[in-house]
Every structure is written in C-alpha cells, then in structure tokens.
C-alpha cells in the first residue's frame, strides 16, 4: 500500500517564531498514525497545513501522491482540538449543514446521520439545540460529523479529551473499526497509553522539528534497555549472589508467594545466560523483556533534543 500523506520539508513561520522547521514524514495508508510532541511543538500547525487551513512557507504535502488541492477536503475528516458547534442551531440541522459543506448530498447525509444517531443512542437529540447538550454529548455529535462522509483520512486532534471512560472506549472501538474498513487516521494526542494501544506508526515533533519517526513496536524495541523481569520463588539472597558482578539488579520486590526482580543484561550477554545463571538459585515462574513505554520514549526523545543550556 502507498502513502496517503507525504510531507516534504515543511517550513511554517509566524511573525515571532518558526512553527515548523523542515519537517518531513510519511503516513502509510491504512494505519493509525500518532502525531506526538509537547505543547507548542508545531503539531497543530502541521495538521492545519494538511487540512489546507494554512499554507506552508515552503515544502509540500502530497495526498495519495498528488499535490494537496481543494478537491481533497472531501476526503479528509478533521476534528480539531478546540472544537465547537453553533450553540443556537439544532443538532440534526447543524450536522446536516456540516456534512453538506463536505460535499455530501442532503438525502445521503440525512440517512447516514440517522444511522449514526441510532448507533450512538442519540435519536432524541435531533431537534435539540446544541446549547442544551452536555459537553460529552456535543463531543459525540462532533465525532459523528467528522466521520460521516467516510473520509479516507481522518485527522483527530486530542479526540479523547472531554469524554468519559465509557465514551473513550466507544470512540476507540470506532477508530479501530474505521481502520479495518480502510481509513487512515492521524491521531494527535498527549495520551501515551492510547498511542501504545492504537497507533501503528508515530512521528514525534519537538521544537518545530520531527525528531523521531517510525513503527511503534520497532521504536519500543530500539529504545529498549535490555531489561528483563523475572518472577521467581526461592531465596532473594541466593539470587542476589548468583547475579553478583555479571548482571545489574535494578530492583527486587517481594510479592505474595513470589518475588519480582528487574535485571539489566549487559551487551556482551543475552537472556539465555541470565536464565542459566539463575537456574541453580531459584524456581523461575516468569521471564519477560521490559519494553519502554511510549511515554518513556517521548520523554527521553524530547530531553535528548533539548538545547544545551548556555552557561
């Protein structure tokens, strides 16, 4: 499969700062793609460029290998971080309006909307004014409006903020289903747990630059510290003395009827030597490698790119 988005050397300057400095990345088709980065890193600027809300000062974005154009807006669904609806307008009428702005015809939009309203159990909301809905309810309406025209590319900026846990699960389920049906989703979020859970690939933007790009599993393996978790029964002291000198014991936590140890394997050795070392001293119940969380990767990547403070 090809790449749905190819961003090449994007530069975006505002009067007082550079929002994006030579950012390039590619989003393969059919994945959930995480666009990560600390606040103010330039994520929203990038998203706005893909949505053609603003134009880059230099560089270009390709959509399915074509230069981005007005025709592509109907193939993109966008849920901005700061989102709202017309307060005085009725829910159904408003959803229809926004759907038609995306190029849907009225009958089609109405039929699909009704189906979504049934799916999300909100049939009774159709004639309510938006101002009479709770924030969570409004978020649901916004989500539906974003996906209604079945876009090839969905761009969601912090989609889970403002939802309760039940609705977060509902939305996550929908995102996974949409990916299965062939949509590509760009997810911008600070919620690293949901990145691990949902995203196939990520780009990390920090201080206007793309500092990390790749597949989530591969990234976690490349950032791993060769640390293993060992669950065992037996004498803690015996294990300690067995490890002595060869392996680094990070911590040892006794639990009910077993002990959990975290052990770092030096580069010269591997997991088999660790098992061989431990075998005489205890009964091994579990043995697994600890991969870094996305959160740890995020923090270490951001710190690594921090400019060195001037003395």
């Amino acid at each position, binding site marked *: 499969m090809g790449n749905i988005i190819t961003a090449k050397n994007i530069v975006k300057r505002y009067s007082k700062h550079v929002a994006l400095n030579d950012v390039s990345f590619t989003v393969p088709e059919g994945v959930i793609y995480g666009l990560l980065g600390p606040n103010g890193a330039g994520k929203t600027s990038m998203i706005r460029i893909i949505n053609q809300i*603003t134009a880059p000062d230099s560089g270009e974005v390709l959509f399915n290998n074509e230069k981005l154009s007005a025709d592509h807006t109907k193939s*993109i669904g966008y849920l901005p971080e700061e989102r*709202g609806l017309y307060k005085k307008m009725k829910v159904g009428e408003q959803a229809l309006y926004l759907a038609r702005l995306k190029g849907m015809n009225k009958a089609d939009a109405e039929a699909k909307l009704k189906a979504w309203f049934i799916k999300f159990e909100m049939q009774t909301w159709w004639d309510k004014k938006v101002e009479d809905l709770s924030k969570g309810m409004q978020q649901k309406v916004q989500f539906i409006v974003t996906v209604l025209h079945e876009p090839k590319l969905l761009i969601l900026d912090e989609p889970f903020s403002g939802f309760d846990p039940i609705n977060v699960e509902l939305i996550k389920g929908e995102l996974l289903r949409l990916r299965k049906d062939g949509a590509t989703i760009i997810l911008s979020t600070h919620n690293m747990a949901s990145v691990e859970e949902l995203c196939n690939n990520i780009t990390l933007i920090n201080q206007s630059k793309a500092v990390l790009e790749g597949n989530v599993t591969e990234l976690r393996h490349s950032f791993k510290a060769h640390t293993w978790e060992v669950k065992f029964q037996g004498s803690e002291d015996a294990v300690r003395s067995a490890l002595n000198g060869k392996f680094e014991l990070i911590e040892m936590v006794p639990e009910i009827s077993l002990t959990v140890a975290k052990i770092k394997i030096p580069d010269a050795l591997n997991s088999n030597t660790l098992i061989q070392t431990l075998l005489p001293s205890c009964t091994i119940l579990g043995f697994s490698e600890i991969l870094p969380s996305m959160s740890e990767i995020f923090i270490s990547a951001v710190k690594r790119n921090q400019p060195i403070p001037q003395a």
Partner: protein
Amino acid sequence: MSKIGLIIQREYTTRVRKKSFLVISILGPLVFAGLIFAPILISNTKNENQRIVVVDETKTICGVLQNNSTVHYDYGYCNIEVASVKKIFADSAHVSVLYIPKSEQMVQVQLFSKDDPGNDVVSSIEYQLNNTLERAKMKAENLDQAMIDKVKSSVKVEDNVNNKVTNTGYNAVLGYAASFLIYIFIFLYSVQVMRGVMEEKINRIVEVIISSVRPFQLMMGKVIGVGLVGLTQFLIWVILGFGAYHVGTAYLQGEMVNPQRAATEQTLKKGAPVDATNLSHMNPQNKDITGAMDNVDNMLRSTNWVLVIGGFLFYFLGGYILYSALFAAVGSAVDQETETQQFMLPVTAPLILSIVVMQSIITNPHSTIAVWFSIIPLTSPIAMMARIPFGIPVWQLALSMSILIGTIFGTVWLAGRIYRVGLLMYGKKVTYKELGKWLFYK
C-alpha cells in the same frame, strides 16, 4: 448546492427565523407610519361636541360665528357680564366661554373652559374672527367685496430645475430619508456580520468549517447571507410602509369628507343657503391637508424614481458590502466583544462623519464638500444618496460608482487576508502592526 450557497442559506435562514427579525420587520414601518401620522391624528381627535358660549362686549360678533359638525356657538349669553357666565359654566365639560372684551382692535380674545377644546376649535375661532374683523374694517374704508377679492393674491414659487418642476424641500426630505436608511442598514447589518464572525471564532466551530471551505468563501457567504436578510427586511418595510401610508391617507380623507357633509346637512336643515366659502371656513385645517396631499402627489410625480431607487439599491448594497467586509475583519481579529472597540472606531468614523456632513450636503448639494464626500468611497454611499434626488451630473455619479466598486474589491480582498489569519488567533491582543503582517502570511 455550492458551498458558498450553503453558507448563504444558513446565514439567511437562521436570521430570518429569529423572533427579533419578525418583531423589527413589523414594528419598523409601524413606528415610521406612526411618526408621520401621529401629529395629524392627534390634532384631529377632539371630536366631541363643543358648546361655545359667546360673551361679546363689542356687540359685533354675536350671531356671526358659524356652527360646524362639532362646534356649536351659543349666543344666549352675549350681553351678560363675563364673570357670572364663567361661574355658570365653570364645571361643565365640553363647554367653553368665549370672551370678547370691548376694544377697538379686538386683539385679545379669551377662551375659558374646563377642558382643552383642541386646536381645531381655537384655530377655527381665530380664522372666523380675523375674517369678520377684516371685512368690517374694509367695509368701514368703503371697499366692496369684489374689489377685495381682486386685491387678494396668493403667490407660489414653482421650482424648475432642468425644465422640470421640482421641490427643493421635498428633495431634501427624500435625500435625507434615503441616505439615513442606508446609514442605519449599513450599521445594523455590518455589526451582525461582525457578531457572526465572532460567534464562529469564539464557539471554535470555525476551524471545522474552514477545513471544508476556504475562509474567503465563509466570509463572503456570511456577508451575502446577512445582506439578503437586510434586503428582505427592507422589502417588508417597503410593503408594510406602503400599506400603512395608504390606510393612513384613506383614513384622513374619510375624516375630511365627513365634517363637510355633516355641516352641509346642518346648514340645509336650517334653511340657509349653502355657501362654498362658508364650507371652507368651517375647518381651515382640512384645506391644508388636502393641499399637502396634492403637493405630495405632485412631488412624487416629479421625482426620477428609477434613478432614486436604482441609486439607493446600488449604494445600499455597495456600502453594506464595503463596511461588512471591514467589520468581518474586525470580528476575526478579536477574541472578545470588548476588544472590538479599538478597531471599530476607525471603521465607523467615515460612516459617522458622512452622517454629520449630510446636513450641509442637503442644504447645499452641489458644494465642494458635497461633491468630494460623494466621491470618496467610504463616505459616498451616504453622501451621494443624499444628493441624488436633487439631480447630479452623470460624470460624478459614474465616478463615484466606479470608485466604490473598485474599493469594494480591494477592501474585500484585504479583509479576507486579515480574516483568514485572525480566525485562528486566540488569546493575544492584536495590534495594527500585526494586522499588517497578516496580509503577507501564506
């Protein structure tokens, strides 16, 4: 439907469906009609029968004043002392005592009553007394009636501009009304555009919308949609106002016919000859109204309505688009209503200036200041409209219109540049310098 069409439709329907639109549409012309007709109606409302008891020390008026449909003169107390007559009728409603003291000139006549008999009665008494006194004096000087009629003159200036009968006062009223309407509409609806822009920005719906349409489409959709609301409102006003005018004049004409007929019947009953001059003496005000209406009719005919209405629509729409684009840019640049102040002032200044200068333009429609104001684009919608009814050189009109059109294109482009950046700027106060930079953002 095209995207801009959808936007226009939404802007239009959400506004027209509002209750406030209905209220303003109906109340507007009623208030206007009320302002025009209220004074006439008020002076015509004292219709209860009035009895005027005449106390005449000069012995010349007793029996002279003529009754009409509502006023009945009582000559039974002519020679009785005024103080005692006043006492008799002190508490009687609808009875007045007319006291004519002994005096050569008869300049000070007094009317005593419990309640105000109304303007009609007073002016009728004055008119008849003056007439009587005049005739008496002329008779004393041995002038006969035929001679008097010959001497009386009535001069009217007929205003001919370019060989067409016109009326300067009327042109002034027309120019004033038309340009004032333009002023009101520009203000009313440009501010609505600004509010709409701010609503979308503050609601944060704008980012969703401009991911579907270009900001320029959104801005123009709003400007056109709200403009159509203004036109609709205006059309409703015209129709209702026209209706109210016709109902009003029909009512007034009915009022005028009735007292005359009643008076005629009364005179016939008494067996006195029906005298046309007497009839017109009955209620001098009626004659004024009939005359005024004839004048209005003549003036309506003298106006070049194609030019006036065409000019009105052109400057109405042109001025509105020019200013609403500027107001849209202001709305996009701020986060809060209170912040609009700093940008509103320079935008509204030319509008207010033109309304201030309008007074001088109307008194002197061909002065240098009038010509310049009607050519400079930010003031021309109001200034030129004030001049159009007076008749203006074609080259001035053409110049003013083409400059306005050119300025509209430039301003809309400029406003669009500011608008598209401003919409997404939150949380900081914007300076003019910054607005300037926005123009060059990609």
